[in-house]
């Protein structure tokens, strides 16, 4: 791939006390690609997401997004630059409605400034109408439109995952980091979610980096797969290559029984 990377992680390290969570990890994500990030529990995948999205600062190494050196930048700056994430345990705003959860993520709402409601009510109302329409459209897409006026706290775990996915899309991101988007989502809905992810890339050219434990899903949608183990990137390549990679099978899939399943999954 010759296109310059949209996201470039270079020799990044992060430790928590004595635990090395991410150890000299480097990889690139090309624009418009879907990249799977896999690895056993505790491999450092979510820490990597936290580093990329600005929730943690790396101790060493650099992260660049669209050529912009972004490590050490606060999360909101990254989100505004077009790099948006979801969380492994969904963070929905429970005592706000589903629609409000979505509308919060609308961009460039001048009504979020202090006191703006007092001197530009019309401009705010106009923008709110656009944001609401956009939110309702997305809610239809993720099939939560019937629950728009329910408190998000009444949603099931899977619905919360979907809401978070939809909320991330509200910001019209250039790149989305999805942390286990399918965990806890019902199988049929999970399939639809996969379709949404593919469609998102097809229609908007959104770049996607996804952590997922569902191997079948990862191998099916990813252009490339990155494998982490014990904080380091141990392999990187096309899904078919990764499935054949001995080191990956050993580190990630472990026992022969599970390795056996690996041969049957994927393309």
């Amino acid at each position: 791939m010759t296109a310059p990377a949209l996201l470039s992680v270079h020799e990044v390290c992060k430790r928590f006390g004595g635990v090395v969570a991410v150890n000299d990890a480097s990889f690139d994500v090309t624009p418009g690609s879907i990249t799977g990030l896999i690895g056993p529990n505790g491999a450092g995948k979510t820490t990597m997401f936290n580093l990329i999205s600005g929730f943690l600062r790396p101790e060493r190494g650099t992260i660049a997004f669209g050529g912009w050196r972004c490590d050490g930048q606060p999360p909101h700056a990254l989100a505004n630059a077009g790099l948006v994430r979801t969380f492994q345990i969904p963070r929905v705003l429970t005592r706000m409605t589903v629609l409000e959860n979505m509308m919060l993520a609308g961009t460039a709402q001048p009504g979020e400034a202090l006191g703006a409601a007092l001197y530009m009510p019309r401009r705010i109302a106009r923008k709110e109408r656009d944001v609401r329409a956009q939110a309702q459209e997305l809610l239809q897409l993720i099939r939560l439109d019937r629950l728009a006026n329910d408190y998000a706290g009444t949603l099931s775990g899977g619905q919360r995952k979907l809401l978070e996915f939809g909320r991330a899309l509200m910001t019209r991101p250039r790149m989305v980091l999805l942390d286990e988007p399918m965990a806890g989502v019902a199988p049929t809905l999970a399939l639809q979610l996969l379709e949404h992810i593919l469609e998102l890339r097809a229609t908007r050219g959104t770049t996607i980096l996804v952590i997922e434990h569902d191997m079948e899903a990862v191998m099916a949608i990813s252009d490339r797969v990155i494998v982490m183990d014990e904080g380091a990137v141990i392999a990187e390549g096309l899904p078919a290559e990764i499935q054949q990679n001995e080191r990956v099978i050993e580190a990630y899939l472990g026992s022969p029984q599970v390795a056996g399943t690996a041969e049957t999954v994927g393309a």
Partner: protein
Amino acid sequence: MDIFNLPFWTFVAVIAGIYTIFALGLYLQYALAGLPNFGHIAFAALAAYTMAILVIRVAAPLPLAALAGLLVAVLFSLLLGIPSLRLRADYLAIATVAGGEIVRYLALNMQGLTGGPLGSIGMLGPSKLAQYNAPWDAFLRRIVEVLKGNPALASVASRDFAMLLVVWTLALVLLFLLWLMVRSPWGRLMRAIREDEAAAAAVGKNVFRAKLQVLVLGALLGGLSGLLLAWQIGIITPDDYQPTFTFYAYLILILGGMTRIWAVPLGALLFGLLYSGTRFLNVYPLSLFDSGDRAYLRLILVGLLLIVLMAVRPQGLLGNRRELLLQ
């Protein structure tokens, strides 16, 4: 005292109006944005003391002194907020508890500046009674004059009645303006921060800036209520700024119903009623206690009433019970 004592209830209503403004500050910070401020009274203390010191010591014009008071309250909120708002909410709670007490102890111990335990009256030393209230009283007298010109109002026109008008006009205007803000996208952002600030940050919201805004806004309201209370009472002492007063404001929010802005004046009136109304509980068997003991009994009764209310209606008068139960 007769239960139908108009001057007494006028006074209670004035205090309830001042408490409305005081509690509105806490409503924005805590009920709306989820910032636990346990030193809200410090903003009132700083504004009142700054105003009093400037008027008494340098003969500053009252409006200027009042503005300076609000400014000091805002600066103090920045002092508390800038180091602690980037951390978890607990740290703001700690900072405000400590901050509130520091302000009170400073007022108590910087005798040369604040008059020490005597309060504003001792600001010019023991030989001379100091007071800051003359311009405000003159302002109220002018309102009374105008009221007396109207035959319908002539019979009720008094200093406290004029104060009642001033305080409740201010309270209602502020309520209306803040209501507009709370239901705007700004209010939504604040509620999102209360629910989960990481989620708000993850979709591009500058959480630190938003929290600082609401902290400063709350400090302004706290400061304003401090000024009004100082003008109403006519003398301030460090004892008027005990942490208890911050908790009264929390009571008002809880009574009215945490998440509704219009519940704030309702809670303030109810609190004023509970707190002052129990004064009239001098019937048998309570009359067996002498009045000094009854004063303590009153606090016990207020507590009891609150417990009953919480058991029967945990969401407060206007609150939403479903919202309370969500995780």
